[in-house]
């Protein structure tokens, strides 16, 4: 039955419409959960507020369990799900740049849009920075191209890499999430609470 676009149950335009509705919902929930505050967001790096870790890890394990159960019931064909290909070096460097930008700017790309939309000036500058960065990357792309495409690994899954089933991997991942949440709460207790 699924994925819906691959089986042409819905068209790409309908898909964009659904994406628009889901996007609005996502933005609304992010804002209501306090993700438009850069102090709350960067709290995860200083250890006084680990809500970012909790939210995104929870989203991850929910989607993961959902996909696995849907596949079990025959509702979705995992072979038809597009997985972003991995270019190892650019993933590592890109992750570092993204993390640095997150700490300095106080937002990640999605939450910056969210905060800019409720009128936060720092977030507007952050969004401007994203556009400048994207343009610099585009203009100088020939310089980076070889590095960007180095160490191509295809679209590997962690479970395939470790040689275990998707289900066992999911269990390990859920265990990891629970451990991270517990660790996060310990840090929150040690650190002085920050008022914002």
């Amino acid at each position, binding site marked *: *039955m699924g*994925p819906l*676009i*691959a*089986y*042409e149950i819905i068209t*790409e335009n309908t898909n964009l419409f659904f994406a628009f509705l889901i996007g609005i919902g996502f933005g609304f929930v992010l804002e209501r959960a306090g993700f438009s505050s850069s102090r709350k967001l960067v709290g995860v790096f200083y250890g006084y507020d680990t809500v970012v870790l*909790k939210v*995104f890890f*929870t989203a991850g*394990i*929910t989607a993961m*369990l959902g996909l*696995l*159960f849907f*596949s*079990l*019931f*025959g*509702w979705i*064909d995992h072979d*038809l*799900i*597009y997985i972003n290909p991995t270019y190892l070096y650019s993933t590592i460097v890109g992750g570092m740049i993204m993390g640095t930008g997150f700490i300095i700017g106080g937002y*990640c*790309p*999605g*939450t910056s849009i969210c905060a800019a939309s409720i009128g936060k000036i720092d977030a507007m500058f952050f969004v401007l920075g994203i556009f400048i960065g994207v343009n610099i990357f585009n203009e100088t792309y020939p310089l980076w191209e070889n590095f960007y495409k180095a160490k191509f690994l295809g679209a590997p899954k962690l479970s395939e890499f470790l040689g275990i*089933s*998707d*289900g*066992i991997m*999911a*269990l390990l*991942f*859920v*265990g990891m*999430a*629970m451990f991270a*949440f*517990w660790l996060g*709460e310990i840090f929150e207790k040690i650190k002085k609470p920050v008022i914002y």
Partner: protein
Amino acid sequence: MKPRILLAIFTIPLALIIAAVPENTTHAFKLTASQLLEEANSGVQYYSPDEIADMIINKDPSLQLIDVRNADEFEKFNLPGAMNIPLADILSKDWQGYLDQDGRINIFYSNGTLKSDKAWMITRQLGYENNYVLLGGLNYWVETIMNPSAPKNTSPNEEFAKYDFRKGAGKALGGSAGAVGESTTSTKLPMPMIKSKPKKKRVQGGC
């Protein structure tokens, strides 16, 4: 209760279940056993020798005869324009493009209908369409098209019309004079139009 504990209560049992069950490898488009039985019993897979003879003579471009006997038998005798896919190789990736398509009418044939029916059931179970079976197989083909027997004088006119058609068809297809056994060299046909498959679509997204 802390949200963390609540989350653990829900997700850990679910993760345990998913870790314990085997991965689902079934695909949604397959027929169920009862659907297949119903189709097989209704005989929708059969094309009569007369229909096939007519299509061959009229050089119907949509017709694709597929001989599911082994290569030796195929060499000895085959129908004009037939290609050879031995039943044992039917699941091979090389043939998938010929079997899973929507451009042609594939007709499986063997000596009887046993092998061709098996081929049809396998392809049908895989969800492929446009595959059919020659009714009665080559034995019945030889009996009806190559060496048709004249109907009794008292038979209705339709029987005579059918006999005349068969006699003509048999001649056109090199039968009638008992020339069964001569082999027509069949050329390997180009791969038919590939059926449109669900495709992966690239998505954009991030935090």
